[in-house]
């Protein structure tokens, strides 16, 4: 029943999501009656498919009632969403819960030796966490596209007559080209606001020739432009910004952060300062935008990748007062910054960290979705990789320090912690979300090992490759990819090609994110990634060289998948090959994007500032290598322990698997009986299954069948709830009894003769 419910729920999930992809963004009203009607329609459509495939009307009715109740609950909870979003969300949650239950049952009751079981348990936890994170992404996507009522959306702030407090704009710089800074400062000089100062804080730039010209530029631009150079200054960018706070005009009420490469529009302050008339507003953030993205796919996809955060994540967070202060193009109340103790100097994403501490004190934040300035993106893939490493490392630092503030019991530990449930959720998911790439690498590793053991026909296994294990995760993967592309297309207004390029741009940085996560877990102080240097003068070779790890992983995945299928061709190894190709493509994106960035590199200089101690990529990767070695060593231990010789008693709790053909609408009459005359077959789904003389667990063993063995069924026992199939032993004329829990069936089994 669990499996049938899972398949049915997956059908509802697929139907509702596909409908949402088509009409979800256009439906601009939310009406509970309409939503309930749509929920019923999706359930009925799914039921039709179910009736024509695996039958069981009574079960379908029960399951439909449960799903309707579950969907109804979410429709009542998500009143600001349209019907498409509400139904898709409820079906996604339902399917995810069911799959997690199924995966646990499979882990718990498959006949595995103890070490295999431990691996299966680890794999299960990884899978469950990944699915929960995928749920969070689904929620965010539906929240921004299917939302019909926005409560905190502000396009333009109303001016407050007479309210023009002093604003101090801080411009931190490290080793920046003077031409870039001059453009930024000139744009600030054109600000249409009467009461502001600009502090240019150059910290630790080694060459005097680089920072001295700033002095002259500031002098030229007027008395409200101040320049200071800080030498041997600790605390990286935060240290410099904290000193700037000390040098801020005492009458300043608001502080703004501007990156050194941003050209700011004249109305930046005029439009945003009115937000601070409300004394509860502590900071305002606007999107970070870039001007140099047109002309090549690398730049365009990188640009869209940045935009995704400001078009999807920030509006969703803003609805719950949970935005992140992203530094540049944001304003912050000076008194609040002083109250929280300034910028934290241990964190390399000090702006995001500060926003969490501010929200903890119960202040309000505001996101204005209009870009007021444009900066420069990293000039090549190497720069992008370093930047993403830094962001992720900072995210992990924040998570490590503030995890307790985000827990359900945070209010009891610290009554002054005023974070709401939604704020805690967004900050927690934001931090944990980085680990998706670590899990992705682990999945790739598990798949490669699976393929290697398959190539050498080793009996080691972590989880039986049942049809459900192959089909449902593939459905999840496909639907979540479609959902991601849909959000990109809808929110960023891009073509499908650019959306796909943007998606792969995210994937291409998975390795850098993985390194940052692992490094962040073991290292306290800020570090930056140093990519390998190549001795060759060829830029193309260097571009490939800086992605050598990603390329190696990609090639390993592809080679393992191909070999596995070539040596042992069947549809399971084909599925494994497909999954490995998919994983390989995620890592292969890195060298491809690196090569694509060559065109951009030729025209621009590097704008990625680095702070912290340098960590060579080879050095950072040692954690991955160490983890892999431990896994391989532990994996090899599996073969030292015997697999269960007979089918253990506990396997009776194993969910009975459905074959793919029995739920495929392509053959709707396959299980109706009488209409299909083909001979039914059974395919063994567990590692090894005993074939017995009698349909009982204590019957004498006549043969052992192995995973993937397909045998012809010539009869069955009477009890369909605990089926035993009378099968023909391969390469023999004899027959034996195979327990139904260990195999899936193809063809009409209901009409088989019942044998004693």
């Amino acid at each position, binding site marked *: 029943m669990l499996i049938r419910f899972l398949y049915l729920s997956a059908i509802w999930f697929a139907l509702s999501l596909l409908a949402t992809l088509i009409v979800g963004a256009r439906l601009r009203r939310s009406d509970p009656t309409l939503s309930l009607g749509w929920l019923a329609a999706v359930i009925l459509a799914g039921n039709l498919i179910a009736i024509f495939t695996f039958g069981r009307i009574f079960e379908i009715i029960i399951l439909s009632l449960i799903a309707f109740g579950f969907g109804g609950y979410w429709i009542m909870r998500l009143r600001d969403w349209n019907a498409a979003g509400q139904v898709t969300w409820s079906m996604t949650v339902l399917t995810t819960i069911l799959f997690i239950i199924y995966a646990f049952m499979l882990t718990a009751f498959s006949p595995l030796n103890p070490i295999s079981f431990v691996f299966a348990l680890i794999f299960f936890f990884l899978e469950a966490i990944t699915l929960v994170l995928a749920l969070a992404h689904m929620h965010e996507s539906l929240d921004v596209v299917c939302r019909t009522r926005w409560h905190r959306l502000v396009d333009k702030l109303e001016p407050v007559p007479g309210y023009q407090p002093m604003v101090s704009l801080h411009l931190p710089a490290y080793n920046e080209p003077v031409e870039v800074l001059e453009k930024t400062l000139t744009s600030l000089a054109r600000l249409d606001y009467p009461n502001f100062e600009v502090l240019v804080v150059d910290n630790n730039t080694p060459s005097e020739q680089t920072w001295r010209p700033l*002095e002259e530029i500031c002098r030229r631009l007027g008395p409200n432009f*101040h320049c200071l150079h800080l*030498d041997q200054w600790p605390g990286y960018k935060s240290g410099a910004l*904290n000193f700037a*706070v000390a040098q801020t005009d005492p009458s300043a009420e608001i502080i703004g952060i501007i990156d050194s490469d941003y050209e700011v529009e004249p109305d930046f302050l005029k439009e945003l300062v009115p937000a601070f008339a409300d004394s509860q507003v502590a900071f305002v953030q606007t999107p970070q935008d870039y001007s140099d993205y047109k002309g090549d796919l690398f730049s365009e996809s990188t640009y869209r990748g940045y935009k995704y955060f400001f078009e999807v994540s920030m509006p969703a967070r803003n609805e719950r007062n949970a935005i992140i202060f992203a530094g540049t193009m944001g304003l912050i109340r000076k008194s609040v910054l002083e*109250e929280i103790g300034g910028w934290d100097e241990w964190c390399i994403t000090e702006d995001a960290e500060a926003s969490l501490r501010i929200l903890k004190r119960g202040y309000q934040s505001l996101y204005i979705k209009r870009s007021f300035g444009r900066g420069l993106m990293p000039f090549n893939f190497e720069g992008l990789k370093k930047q993403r490493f830094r962001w992720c490392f900072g995210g992990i*630092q924040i998570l490590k320090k503030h995890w307790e503030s985000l827990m359900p019991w945070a209010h*009891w530990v610290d009554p002054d912690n005023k974070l709401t449930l939604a704020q805690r959720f967004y900050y927690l998911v934001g931090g944990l979300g980085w680990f998706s790439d670590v899990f992705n690498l682990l999945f790739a590793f598990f798949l490669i090992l699976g393929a290697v053991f398959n190539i050498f026909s080793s009996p080691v296994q972590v989880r039986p490759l049942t049809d459900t294990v192959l089909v449902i995760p593939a459905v999840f993967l496909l639907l979540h990819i479609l959902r991601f592309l849909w959000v990109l297309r809808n929110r960023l207004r891009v073509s499908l090609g650019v959306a796909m390029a943007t998606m792969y741009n995210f994937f291409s940085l998975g390795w850098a994110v993985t390194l940052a996560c692992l490094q962040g877990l073991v290292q306290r102080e800020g570090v930056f990634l140093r990519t390998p240097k190549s001795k060759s003068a060829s830029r193309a070779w260097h571009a490939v060289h800086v992605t050598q790890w990603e390329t190696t992983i990609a090639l390993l995945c592809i080679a393992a998948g191909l070999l596995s299928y070539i040596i042992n061709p069947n549809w399971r190894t084909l599925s494994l090959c497909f999954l490995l190709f998919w994983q390989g493509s995620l890592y292969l994106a890195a060298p491809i994007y690196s090569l694509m960035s060559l065109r951009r590199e030729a025209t621009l200089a590097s704008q990625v500032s680095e702070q912290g101690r340098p960590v060579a990529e080879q050095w950072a990767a040692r954690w991955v290598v160490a983890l892999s070695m431990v896994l391989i060593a532990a994996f090899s231990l599996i073969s030292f322990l015997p697999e269960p010789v007979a089918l253990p008693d*506990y396997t009776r709790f194993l969910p009975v698997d459905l074959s793919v053909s029995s739920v495929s609408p392509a053959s709707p009459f396959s299980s109706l009986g009488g209409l299909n005359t083909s001979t039914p077959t059974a395919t063994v789904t567990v590692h090894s299954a005993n074939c017995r003389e009698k349909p009982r667990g204590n019957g004498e063993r006549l043969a052992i069948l192995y995973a993937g063995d397909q045998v012809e069924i010539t009869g069955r026992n009477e009890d369909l709830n605990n089926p035993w199939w009378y099968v023909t032993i391969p390469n023999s004329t004899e027959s034996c009894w195979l327990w139904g829990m260990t195999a899936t069936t193809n063809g009409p089994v209901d009409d088989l003769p019942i044998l004693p």
Partner: protein
Amino acid sequence: MQRELQTELSRLLEEAQHDVEQGKRENAYQASLKATRLAPDEPMAWYLRAQSAPSNEEHLICLSRAYSLDPLLKPARTELRSAVHRLLKQEPFLAYVHETEELYQVRSGLDLLINIPKNRAFEPPYLKKNPSLLKPAFTWLYLSLLALLLGGVGAVLFAPITAFQVLRIQSRPLYRADRVRLLVIMILSLLVWIVSIPISWLFLIRFFP
């Protein structure tokens, strides 16, 4: 002797204050100079000397000294910021020397050693986190969670040890927050223990199928 010094200092300070107000800078400077020599740890003396100092450098040094002796001397703090700004207009170079919870000590491009106030509250840095009394309980809880992941048998043993650690620590005087944390650890260890029983059973039956 002490009283005489104090009387003399008060007189000099009053005189300097009066001269500053009257615009008699030279007289004020002489009086405050004597005052700073007489009592080098008197912030008001340095502040008044700064008020009448003949050069910007001396003005800055005196303010810096006054501020470092008494960070609550608000006029010194305010004027110091303006003085540093004037200095930075001449020479924007500042090198880090040292810092305390209240001030930065820097060396300017003109080789002046200046104390600059930190304009913010002080938050204990993350890296200098003090060791917590709760550490053993947390350590055993982490071990229990890890053991749960690795088959559950270890968690059956470690979770009660965690609970024991909680009870042991609870007998000590603790902050309210730590008491709540201990309660949370206790609940979590109980949950881990409950979950670990079926998982360890599933693990153990693999040995005796």
